[in-house]
């Protein structure tokens, strides 16, 4: 029950999905559509996994008083506020609450305000830290120590300059005596269109074979790591 049934289910659903791909008949397409609909219904529940893990870790942190445990309360406050305002749309029918200006659900102005003024700026800022780190890494770590690294750096510099209008401007001013215009952006485009394309294609071909081989192993029950430990 704990391992065999899931393996059989995985095999059956996998094989049916493969076969429907080759059978255009409406019966087969109906089956295919049915399974897609079922998995559409099942997949939202998977959120439970992520949320449970998160709550568990922060709960452990609070109960064990590990370093900075107080901040775990902030995580809980964040979750509770969003859920309390976003989920109970039925409370919109309670006239007392709407009289004092409270509204609920994902379209509620409070929910949108929190999203636009708290979540969006933090998420965007968090990632923009990378601009600083990339600059510092460029200075402190990106050295042409091997042939490979040199090739990588030179390509990177050309693409970086080709990506911005100032690249062409510099070329057209400094190299005005040559018969060629806009060489920086042309070079960038050529690199992306040619050697970059071949390298990517090589990677795609290799990776896709890997994906297919893993899918085959999963359907046949050879690869079982997704079942986790006992």
């Amino acid at each position, binding site marked *: 029950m704990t391992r065999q049934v899931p393996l059989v289910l995985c095999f059956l659903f996998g094989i049916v999905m493969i076969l429907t791909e080759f059978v255009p008949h409406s019966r087969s397409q109906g089956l295919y559509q049915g399974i897609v609909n079922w998995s559409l219904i099942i997949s939202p529940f998977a959120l439970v996994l992520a949320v449970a893990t998160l709550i568990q870790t922060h709960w452990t942190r609070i109960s064990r008083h590990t370093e900075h445990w107080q901040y775990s309360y902030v995580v809980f406050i964040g979750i509770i506020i969003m859920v309390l305002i976003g989920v109970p749309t039925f409370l919109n029918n309670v006239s007392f609450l709407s009289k004092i200006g409270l509204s609920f659900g994902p379209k509620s102005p409070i929910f949108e305000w929190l999203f636009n003024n708290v979540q969006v700026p933090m998420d965007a800022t968090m990632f923009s830290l990378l601009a600083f780190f990339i600059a510092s890494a460029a200075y402190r770590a990106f050295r042409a120590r091997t042939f490979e690294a040199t090739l990588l750096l030179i390509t990177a510099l050309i693409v970086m300059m080709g990506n911005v209008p*100032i690249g062409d401007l510099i070329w057209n001013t400094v190299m005005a005596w040559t018969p060629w215009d806009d060489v920086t952006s042309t070079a960038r485009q050529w690199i992306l269109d040619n050697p970059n*394309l071949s390298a990517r294609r090589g990677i795609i071909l290799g990776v896709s074979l890997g994906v297919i081989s893993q899918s085959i192993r999963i359907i046949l029950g050879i690869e079982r790591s997704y079942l986790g430990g006992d």
Partner: protein
Amino acid sequence: MLEKLMNIDRRIIFIAIALSVIIPTLLPVNLPITGSEPTQKLYDYIDALPPGSTIMLAFDYGPSSLAEPAPMAEAVMKHCFDKGVRIIGVTLIVDAVTLADKLMQKVSEEKGAVYGKDYVLLGFRPGVTQVILGMGTEIAGVFESDYTGKPLSEIPMMANITNYDQIDLLLDLSAGSTVEIWITYANVKYGLQIAAGVTGVIVSQMYPYLQTGQLVGLMPGFLGAAEYEKLINAPAKGTEGINTESFAHLLIVGLVIMSNIAFFVHQRQSVGASSRSQREE
């Protein structure tokens, strides 16, 4: 001295990069933008659509990376509304839906487009691949109602649209791996035409699909946004951004070159020192 230069406090570099963005934002400059072929292809494709055609816009980016795709979406929507091409908004990423809603409202107000007639936002459904596949047979099977909860059957512009057969193009604005998923499932299985507008991070890996025609066009990052804005003659955030970006790139290129010069000089010196010490032994 050289040692010191090589191990400079990273906070000095942080300040330099901040200034390279702040100053051009305060004192904007206008640099000439050279267009590139992938963006031009996308523009030509949309421009050739007759009025009344429908494109699908997939907002597959979260708040963390909205800087690049948002101006692209804006430029393309303006182009479509001007041409009378209708837009269906959809997203596979959970935190994109509120962003998409805000952006669509903004552009439609500016262009006088009407919800339900010129554009519609279907919203989000969990399950990426299944959502794409489901819409291939019947859009209403996945989105029986739009983002606001209104049944699709009550939305006028959805009257003649059942699945991808009635959609002329899917433009995926992506900050992750969604473009490949759209190609694998919507293009291969249902023959939907696909174009992409992606953040800089994933630009390079789009090119194999561009060459095979699996992508009909591509907007590469801020540059793509700026190019599209140039093509529709409405410079906005993308153009401002790419001009500012110029100075930051210049700084980073400078830093890489400088540090490599220091590295080589240093290496040569230390090689010299070690060979001397060998002689002394």
